């Protein structure tokens, strides 16, 4: 019987019915302390430290601090120090502040090559779906499950349903992976993928870079999906080859089998015309409240949308291009990789950030930062008036000092525009790196396709 990519990975990891083996467990400081503490109380060891990897990302300042002791916020400092201590005690490798490998957990996994096709990957973080870009089955779990995986290297799981989203046509000039996924969420809704593992397929997906594919899979959770995945191909193999943890040679024969067979059955199928997509901008307080940049703030169709408009201080009918911004944030596990920064720098080059805007770039990892600096991208951003920061989750969720003030309006390359996400009372609009860069310069949203700079 023909199998989906998801079926193949699931079957290869089922230890017993409803018990799934985990090939890689990624850990960070926010969702792990209670799990380690419970292990300690129960006298249980970490079963497979060699399949576990930790980093500090959510809480870390992006001011260049090179040790946990330098973190000024006491609670953040304690949390990062607790991670370091737990990892030492349980033998788990950790890249904390000061390591040249530190960074956002979903950036460093692929970067080191520990994210590979065919794996099962979990992490106490909903954006674990990112790793599905490599043809892995990757999803977020809660702290109780983190403890369960630490203790047993397995997870109790009912098999989710499957969905395929197949794209046709071609993304237009200036329309990026971020616009593709925002447009998709706008179409299926923020609960459209609930209970499903989503495979993204079709020529527009095959043409995306690995960075673009990671952006798409990353935001699967914003459409409610359990995991997102893309069949690995030469683009994937070239990206993985030569990284520290990558096999040498790559098992290409095996990896090329990681695709949905012809005739494989999905529980749900969706087809989207990629040619019809424009650059996207969110207007409300869920990622599904999104319109074309050429559009306007819509009339609210229910109470939730009215509440969103009130929170966002927007009026229906206002053209998106008239929305003025206070801040721009380029970063997060969605859009902070070298390809994202190159795209933004290309837009920024030779321009100045609008005087009314406070703009920052936060590379996803220390390595992305070093690479960008080697290419002179930091100079491009600085010359334009951007603040060039060190690696971490930063203003995506504002657990560190990088937060927007009440009432401030932010163009952000991150993944969530929930109320208060980037700071209490702050108003977030999600966009692509190119769109964020152009918005920083103009102080309002512009259509990158027609913007002349």
């Amino acid at each position, binding site marked *: 019987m023909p199998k989906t990519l998801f079926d193949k990975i699931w079957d290869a990891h089922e230890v017993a019915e409803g018990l799934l083996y985990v090939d890689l467990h990624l850990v960070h400081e926010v969702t792990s302390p209670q799990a380690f503490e419970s292990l300690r109380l129960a006298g249980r060891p970490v079963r497979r430290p060699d399949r576990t990897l930790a980093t500090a990302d959510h809480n870390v300042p992006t001011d260049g601090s090179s040790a946990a002791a330098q973190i000024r916020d006491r609670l953040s400092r304690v949390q990062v120090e607790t991670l370091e201590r737990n990892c030492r005690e349980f033998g788990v490798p950790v890249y904390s502040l000061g390591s040249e490998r530190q960074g956002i957990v979903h950036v460093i996994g692929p970067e080191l090559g520990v994210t590979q096709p065919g794996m099962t990957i979990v992490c106490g973080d909903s954006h674990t779906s990112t790793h599905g870009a490599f043809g892995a089955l990757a999803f977020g779990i809660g702290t109780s499950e983190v403890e369960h995986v630490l203790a047993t290297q397995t997870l109790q799981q009912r098999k989710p349903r499957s969905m395929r989203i197949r794209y046709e046509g071609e993304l237009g000039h200036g329309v990026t992976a971020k616009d593709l996924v925002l447009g998709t969420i706008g179409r299926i809704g923020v609960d459209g993928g609930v209970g499903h593992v989503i495979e993204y397929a079709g020529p527009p997906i095959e043409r995306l870079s690995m960075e673009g594919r990671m952006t798409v899979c990353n935001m699967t959770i914003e459409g409610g999906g359990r995991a997102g995945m893309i069949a690995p191909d030469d683009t994937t193999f070239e990206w993985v080859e030569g990284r520290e943890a990558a096999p040498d040679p790559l098992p290409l024969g095996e990896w090329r089998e990681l695709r949905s067979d012809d005739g494989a059955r999905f529980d749900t199928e969706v087809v989207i015309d990629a040619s019809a997509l424009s650059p996207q901008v969110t207007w409300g307080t*869920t990622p599904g409240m999104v319109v074309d940049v050429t559009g306007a703030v819509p009339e609210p169709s229910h109470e939730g949308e009215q509440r969103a408009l009130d929170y966002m201080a927007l009026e229906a009918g206002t053209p998106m291009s008239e929305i003025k911004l206070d801040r721009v944030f380029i970063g997060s596990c969605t859009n902070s990789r070298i390809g994202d920064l190159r795209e933004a720098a290309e837009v920024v080059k030779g321009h100045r950030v609008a005087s009314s805007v406070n703009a920052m770039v936060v590379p996803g990892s220390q390595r992305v930062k070093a690479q960008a600096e080697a290419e002179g991208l930091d100079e491009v951003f600085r010359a334009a008036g951007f603040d060039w920061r060190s690696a971490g989750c930063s203003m995506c969720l504002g657990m560190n000092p990088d937060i927007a003030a009440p009432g401030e309006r932010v163009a952000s390359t991150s993944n969530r525009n929930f109320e208060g996400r980037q700071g209490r009372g702050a108003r977030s609009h999600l966009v692509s790196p190119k769109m964020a860069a152009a918005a920083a310069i103009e102080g309002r949203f512009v259509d990158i396709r027609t913007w002349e700079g």
Partner: protein
Amino acid sequence: MEPVRLIEGAVSVLDRDDVDTDQIIPKQFLKRVERTGFGEFLFHDWAKQPGWELPSNPILATGRNFGCGSSREHAPWALEDYGFEAIVAPSFADIFYSNCTKIGLLPVVLAEDDVRDLMAAGHARIDLEEQEIAFGGRQLQFEIDPETARRLLEGLDDIGVTLQQLDAIERYEAERERTGPVTTTV
């Protein structure tokens, strides 16, 4: 985990769809390294708004896609610490649903119209063993995965249950585990 069997009492109403975990427990409270004490921060920002009312009751009735967004288990911890023992909604986000079942906070899925009736009824009795919820003179069945229900009913420790299958895990590791990546030698 304490066994979950019967939950009876007044119903608190939060009539909103797509309530995300950032609202349930905002990020500034995720810096704690303990599992307890989150209840006082439940819906921290919304609770400051005029007209907000969410009494501490055994049951919370709410809208579609409850608990979407971040995987933070701090959200169910906060709801439980606040006093809720069951949450009834037309649908839940996957990770949130799973997190609730791990700590003994019972998520119950009912049709949207039935949730509306429950909100109006104001009082309910939930029997997990019978998979039944009674309110306003009505008795309805609800679906829950049998294995999840069993663990809740018996208050089982998930890790303890899995470790009963240690042989199967060891056999998997000996025969089927993939080669690498080895994180300790990267």
